[in-house]
């Protein structure tokens, strides 16, 4: 099982799903209506490292973080 967590203002509880790659996670999240307005503008981290590659292999226990638009300072 892979854990998906939603950071900052996204009001979505963490999810646990079976996924072999980040592409599986993307396919799954695209089906969640309430995330529609967010996904376009979100970046992704896997286990605390930014990831830009949908083919990224995932293993059980991995944590995928969904990062919406930022504004520090």
């Amino acid at each position, binding site marked *: 099982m892979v854990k998906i967590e939603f*950071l*900052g*203002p996204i009001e979505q509880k963490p999810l646990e799903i079976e996924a072999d790659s*980040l*592409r599986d*996670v*993307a*396919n799954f*999240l*695209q089906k969640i209506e309430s995330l529609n307005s967010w*996904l*376009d*503008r*979100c*970046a*992704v*981290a896997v286990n*605390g*490292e*930014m*990831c*830009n*590659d*949908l083919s990224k292999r995932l293993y059980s226990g991995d944590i995928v*973080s*969904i*990062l*919406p*638009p*930022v*504004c*520090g*300072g």
Partner: protein
Amino acid sequence: MELYQGPLDIKSIFSRWLDEERESNYGAFIPFIGIVRAEDNIEGLSFDIYEPILESWFNSWVEIAKERGAKVKMAHSIGDVPIHTSSYISAVFSPRRRVALELIDEFVEDFKANAPIWKYDIVDGKRLYAEDRSSPMSGSGILTNKENR
């Protein structure tokens, strides 16, 4: 990198950083201090931070600075920060002023664009996501790109 609950004690952070590098023989020290402005009736700002990515983002700037013979430091608030107090201080130390002036600009701009921090206005005690002032991080959109539809 330093994270604090609530507003930063800017004077004490500034003094400590100055002391820490007193003997390092840097010639220029440029801090950037962010102060929460009173606007749109807000009571303050509030911040969420994703520490693992902030840490690695900051460490990449430590390396960039080191290649130029310089050093960067940074502190940020977590949670609520009232107006006219500070949520952010970063700084560059460098032997030479040109390097310092260029680095503080690049560092602060990249911080704004890519540090994993989410900002909320506090209005009537409620947190409202500062969506209009927020920017998608680099790499955003990967989950909906066309090849995947």
